[in-house]
């Protein structure tokens, strides 16, 4: 048996050349593939996420909204593909991440202030630098509660505020938020939503927000990324350009209502498909 019969035929196909996104793109995702239990969740998925914008991710249950941002943030390994931040890899990029479950994201053995300073300490910042940044954050979030308390002594909204502060402490290039409001009561949701918008207007940090509330997704977004059922593709990217700061008045503007209605139509079309 020295010859191989029916040897598989390989074609020396060149790797497809990397296609950069349009100007103003921050994160480029090319050929992203992810299998879950043998089934494709994402297959050859391409996406450009713009810089200095808020992108809301919305889609049917189980389409992998959170998985998408977790893969971009490096929390879930990908099977194939390439994700670049301004042409750099994740290792060379500072990111922040806000978890849905703040209770299990904060470190209860540290005081809240030390939780927020933790990413700075990881970077080896001096005490003076850490203190300066803390003062800055406290001012820009207009914190009214005692940061010397332990996280479990704070209310849910205060804890989530603290974990957003922690994510923003190192001035990340991108901030990922995985359903950050879904464990909070309505009052706190409104409050933190406004804070988030304020911070965005100050810093113009690129944000990717997963939401299960369409109104909230549209309200905060510059772009609404609508996904299909699995295997997940981009159903539509809807721009929404109403000026900031958006307020409760915005919610009844015709442009907002139109954007929300259109998103809902696309969503329903995808769910029924």
């Amino acid at each position, binding site marked *: 048996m020295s010859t191989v019969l029916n040897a598989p035929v390989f074609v020396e196909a060149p790797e497809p050349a990397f296609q950069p996104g349009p100007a103003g793109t921050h994160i480029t995702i090319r050929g992203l593939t992810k299998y879950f239990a043998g089934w494709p969740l994402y297959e050859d998925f391409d996406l450009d996420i713009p810089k200095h914008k808020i992108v809301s991710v919305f889609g049917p249950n189980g389409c992998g909204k959170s998985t998408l941002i977790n893969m971009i*943030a*490096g*929390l879930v390994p990908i099977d194939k593909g390439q994700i670049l931040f301004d042409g750099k890899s994740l290792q060379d990029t*500072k*990111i*922040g*991440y806000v*978890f849905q*479950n703040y209770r*299990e*994201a*904060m*470190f*209860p*053995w540290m005081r809240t202030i030390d939780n927020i300073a*933790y*990413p700075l300490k*990881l*970077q080896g910042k001096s005490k003076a630098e850490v203190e300066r940044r803390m003062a800055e954050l406290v001012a820009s979030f207009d914190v009214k509660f005692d940061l010397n308390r*332990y996280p*479990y002594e704070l209310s849910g909204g205060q804890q989530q505020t603290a974990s957003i502060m*922690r994510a923003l402490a*190192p001035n990340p290039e991108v901030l990922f938020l995985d359903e950050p409001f879904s464990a909070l009561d309505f009052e706190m949701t409104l409050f933190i939503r406004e804070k988030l918008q304020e911070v965005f207007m100050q810093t113009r940090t690129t944000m990717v927000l997963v939401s299960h509330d369409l109104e909230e997704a549209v309200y905060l977004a510059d772009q609404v990324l609508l996904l299909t059922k699995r295997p997940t593709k981009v159903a539509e990217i809807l721009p929404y350009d109403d000026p900031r700061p958006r307020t409760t008045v915005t919610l009844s503007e015709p442009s907002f209502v139109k954007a929300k209605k259109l998103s809902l139509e696309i969503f329903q079309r995808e769910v029924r498909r």
Partner: protein
Amino acid sequence: MQAAKPWSPPASAGAPTQTAKTDWTKALPVIGPVVLFIIWDLVVRLGFIKPILLPAPLDALGTLITGLAGGPLLGDFLITVWRTVQAFLIAALVGMPLGIVLGSTEKAYRSVEFLIDFFRSTPSSALIPLFLMIFGVSDINKVAIAAFGALLIVIFNSAYGVINARKQRVMAAKVMGATRWQVFRDVLVWESLQPSFVGLRSAVSMALVIVIVAEMFIGADSGLGNRIINSQQVMNVKDMYASILAAGALGYALNVLFLLVEKRIVHWSGR
């Protein structure tokens, strides 16, 4: 029961609205022991059990108090405490770091898991003859076997504390750029503290049990175990019961002490 009066949790016993009931709820924990002592006393008084087998409770308590207040019981008590503390310290100082390291490299833990589970399930007293062969009839022997029994409990609990660490906290640290070592130092070690304390508390009880057993049966000439068996042989029941009560009080005190320490150190536990 609920229809008559709303049940109030013990924590709110000091609530000002219930001043009339406060004395009662505070007295609740005392009721059990008092009832036991009354029954005990009646049983002796009415002659159900001969006084040669069971002394009156006040006699036993009196012997306990005079014994611990500088009598010979105090010496044996302190020796047992010292052996238990030694065994416990060995178990804690070796077991906690070992358990945490094993837990953080799960493959390492899986490879020794069977051994730990097997010897953890083996009654340590069954190993006394084996330890006799290794260490001889010495003081070290008693400490060694107690330390061995306690060690396995500590390793097991610390390792599982790390293995079951909240994945999200680990992820949070990683996404902030923590290295493997930083995740270990800043998250895994802390996450394992609470289960480790559960382990330490069981370990100190285990150490006490084995020390007492070893004092009874491995040619000891001191310690509470030795005292209990000696008094039994000469039918000095007052002293025997006093020693048993002393051993019980010691076990209870150690448990309470650990709960207090745990509450201080693992202040976030259960929140």
